[in-house]
């Protein structure tokens, strides 16, 4: 399930019959597009005709030049990154159905989703103007950052137009300085005297003198909403000039004066209707009837539209409307004058109507506005499955923050969910008390609780066990992970695939962190299987990275290679290159480097890069830098590798994955290879690593790094440490690690640099095989590399040993103790 999309938010308002053409403004916008500017910004207070201008412009563009419009009317709820992305995808899809197909399917991050969308827009080739209306409501920093990022990377076929009541918190100044911004502001938008005359006398059908028009224009300062209200007040008035004189002579707030006038002239039932329905963000006939308790709401709305009373249609069928913002605020202030109780009743009715029409999000919003927290709590509980699947975390977290603790105390489902929100927020200490409270409520014999029956409640014990396993994992408590994840697996029925997949995955992560890689692989095979059955191919394929990370130390490189090949084939064919394709390319590159096939690794990294920097999942973003660093290291570019590893450190996120290969240790290894031993030593000391430490899988890579340092320093402590590591790795079946240790043990304990250039590990492997009877192609096969790659290695070995033949190389190597 994805975020439900309200089509009304994607509806470009059709130009009004009474709207007057404003060619100078449309020309300015056109010139911007022709000049290749990225952004059109229409920034002015309410009532300056921003939406009207943009809708007229995009309609003209569409008719004239085949440029399509993607329209998105924003509201406060769009401050949720997942929801914002879902709507952005839907809006772009309305312009070209090929866009946004993959991008909204549960993206891990807004930037990743945006990067994917940009690619799709670029590939589609369709010229699109994306209009973001009412942008002033967007305050979420993540969304603003991501949009700033988008503006810097816009494909030439995409232009963005923003209508906002205040200047958006985007890098507008930079675009302005670079001449990439078309800007229309209040001064440019207000009606000129000629436009005011045309509007009042032609569009609104009045017959005003030149002086009267000038007086109105001066009094309203060309403010279009003011002129429109004035025109409405004067309709059917015998003496327009007297009205204008009164208005011009008054210093009352323009809108107060005029709306009062308009409302005074409307029939009483219309006034009541307007006041009571003003709380609604969007209006339909049946909804208005439910809120007012009356009938004929649809007809009333249609009549309001005909009378031009500030209702804006939101669809072609004239089913949904909204009030003009300015008008809605004035009406709401009048409603408040009738007392807060009245407003609460109306909000509660709106909430009930939305609930019965399966619009839970709006039902929650009105319940909260009505101050009915019990109702809100019940609705939030009911919306959990949908909101969780659409990953609208921010929305749920905001709702939860509005509920006092006592409202949640009798609702186990909500308690468990708030435990999850604490987990997500990193507030680990708050998780267990909430889980315990929930557990007490569902225990046999407990007094009745308030959660509704249903799947969420039925699977609550599984969910509780899963969250406990996640907490244990965060705390590094491996036995705890195993205990809770096993419990979740036992509790989950055979058909509860999602629960089973999550439990198996957590179990696997725990086994991995504990060094049981065979066990971890088995658990992740189960997890992948369950996730497939649950229909979650993205997460199922993501298990490939974890499995490969375990296969490499086990020495099963061929298996890791085949796993990546098959996962990539599937990701390309069935996910269209969407997540986790980029992660898979990055991970595959690392395996290829291990295999010594640097050219193929380079290809994988390029393929990942082609998907865009944001195509990586948040957890694996740093891995791309790691992969690239490992490649540069293997290519003999240690400085480039170190710079990339520093980049990796900056984008590193701890996540739930075992930290089996710390970035600091990788940096230390490169420095050891460069002979910069004090720098390597500093990191190892900071970690408190010594040759006498107790060994454990999570520190194996670091301890091996220490052994390398000791070898380079000619320190005799290297030998016993290597033997202990050797035995531990052998006992754990980690044959890849065993091979690495044996390689190190063959190196003479002597300071680096004494015997000419040092051979890389791969070159030492090749050298060992060169000393055998195997032919060149046989050696290449044994190492899983191409004959070409083998030749490259051989050439490097010959150069470093200053020899010209295989026999000479083997002889020189024996002399130096390398074999």
């Amino acid at each position, binding site marked *: 399930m994805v975020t439900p999309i309200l089509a009304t938010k994607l509806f470009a308002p059709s130009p009004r019959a009474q709207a007057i053409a404003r060619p100078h403004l449309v020309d300015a916008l056109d010139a911007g597009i022709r000049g290749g500017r990225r952004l059109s910004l229409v920034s002015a207070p309410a009532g300056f005709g921003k939406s009207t201008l943009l809708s007229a412009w995009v309609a003209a563009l569409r008719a004239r030049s085949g440029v399509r419009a993607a329209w998105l009317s924003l509201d406060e709820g769009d401050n949720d990154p997942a929801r914002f992305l879902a709507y952005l995808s839907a809006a772009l899809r309305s312009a070209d159905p090929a866009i946004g197909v993959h991008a909204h399917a549960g993206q891990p991050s807004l930037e990743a989703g945006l990067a994917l969308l940009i690619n799709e827009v670029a590939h589609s080739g369709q010229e699109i103007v994306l209009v973001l209306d009412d942008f002033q409501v967007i305050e979420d920093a993540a969304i603003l950052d991501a949009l700033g990022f988008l503006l810097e990377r816009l494909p030439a076929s995409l232009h963005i137009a923003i209508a906002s009541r205040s200047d958006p918190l985007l890098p507008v100044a930079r675009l302005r300085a670079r001449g990439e911004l078309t800007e229309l502001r209040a001064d440019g938008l207000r009606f000129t005297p000629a436009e005011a005359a045309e509007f009042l006398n032609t569009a609104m059908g009045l017959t005003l003198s030149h002086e009267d028009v000038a007086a109105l224009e001066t009094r309203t300062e060309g*403010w279009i909403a003011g002129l429109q209200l004035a025109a409405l007040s004067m309709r059917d008035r015998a003496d327009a000039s007297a009205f204008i004189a009164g208005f011009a002579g008054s210093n009352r707030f323009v809108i*107060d004066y005029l709306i009062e006038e308009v409302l005074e002239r409307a029939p009483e039932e219309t006034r009541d209707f307007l006041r009571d329905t003003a709380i609604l963000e969007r209006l339909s006939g049946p909804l208005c009837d439910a809120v007012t308790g009356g009938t004929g709401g649809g007809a009333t709305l249609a009549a309001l539209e005909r009378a031009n009373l500030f209702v804006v249609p939101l669809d072609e069928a004239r089913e949904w409307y909204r009030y003009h913002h*300015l008008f809605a605020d004035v009406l*709401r202030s009048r409603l408040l004058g009738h007392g807060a109780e009245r407003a609460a009743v109306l909000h509660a009715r709106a909430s009930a109507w939305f609930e019965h029409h399966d619009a839970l999000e709006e039902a929650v919003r009105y319940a909260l506005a009505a101050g009915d927290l019990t109702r809100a709590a019940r609705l939030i509980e009911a919306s959990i499955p949908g909101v969780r699947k659409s990953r609208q975390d921010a929305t749920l977290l905001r709702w939860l923050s509005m509920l006092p603790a006592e409202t949640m105390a009798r609702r186990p489902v909500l308690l468990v969910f708030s435990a999850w929100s604490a987990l997500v927020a990193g507030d680990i200490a708050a998780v267990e008390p909430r889980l315990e409270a929930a557990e007490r409520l569902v225990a046999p014999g407990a007094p009745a609780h308030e959660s509704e029956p249903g799947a969420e409640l039925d699977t609550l014990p599984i969910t509780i066990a899963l969250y406990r396993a996640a907490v244990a994992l965060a705390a590094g408590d491996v036995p705890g992970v195993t205990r809770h994840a096993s419990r979740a697996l036992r509790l989950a029925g055979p058909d509860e695939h999602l629960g089973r997949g999550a439990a198996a995955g957590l179990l696997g992560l725990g086994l991995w962190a504990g060094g049981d890689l065979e066990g971890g692989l088995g658990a992740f095979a189960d997890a992948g299987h369950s996730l497939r059955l649950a229909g979650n191919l993205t997460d199922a394929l993501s298990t490939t990275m974890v499995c490969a990370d375990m296969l490499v130390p086990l020495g099963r490189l061929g298996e890791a290679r085949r796993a990546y090949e098959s996962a990539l084939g599937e990701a390309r064919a069935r996910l269209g290159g969407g997540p986790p394709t980029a992660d898979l390319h990055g991970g595959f590159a690392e395996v290829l480097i291990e295999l010594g096939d640097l050219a193929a690794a380079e290809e994988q990294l390029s393929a990942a890069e082609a998907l865009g920097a944001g195509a990586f999942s948040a957890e694996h973003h740093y891995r791309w830098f790691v992969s690239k660093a490992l490649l540069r290291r293997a290519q003999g570019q240690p400085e480039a590798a170190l710079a990339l590893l520093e980049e990796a450190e900056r984008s590193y996120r701890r996540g739930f994955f075992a930290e089996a290969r710390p970035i600091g240790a990788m940096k230390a290894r490169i420095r050891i290879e460069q002979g910069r031993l004090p720098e390597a030593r500093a990191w190892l000391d900071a970690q408190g690593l010594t040759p006498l430490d107790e060994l454990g899988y999570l520190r194996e890579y670091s301890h091996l790094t220490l052994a390398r340092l000791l070898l380079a320093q000619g320190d005799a402590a290297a030998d016993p440490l290597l033997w202990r590591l050797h035995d531990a790795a052998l006992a754990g079946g980690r044959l890849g690690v065993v091979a690495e240790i044996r390689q190190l043990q063959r190196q003479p304990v002597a300071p680096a640099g004494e015997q000419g250039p040092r051979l890389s590990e791969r070159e030492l492997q090749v050298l060992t095989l060169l000393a055998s009877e195997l032919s060149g192609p046989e050696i290449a096969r044994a190492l899983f590399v191409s004959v070409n790659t083998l030749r490259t290695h051989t050439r490097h070995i010959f150069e470093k040993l200053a020899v010209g033949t295989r026999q000479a190389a083997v002889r020189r190597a024996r002399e130096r103790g390398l074999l």
Partner: protein
Amino acid sequence: MTINTHTYQVRLRGRLDERWAEWFVGFTLAGDADGTTVLTGPVADQAALHGLLRRLGALGATLISVNELHSEPQGEESP
């Protein structure tokens, strides 16, 4: 520690009706002879102040000035 509520005065062009006091909870509205309106009221913090200004902006109000009213110092400063 007490929460420091500040008192702000916001001046707008035009005379705003009394009934808007309900809309700007806690504020008093006063029309001035020069055709401006002064809203005076408590503002909890900067976020609340920006929220107030946004609400005024949503009404199409023209802002003339925003001032913080300084209360008289309470008691003597210790030396």
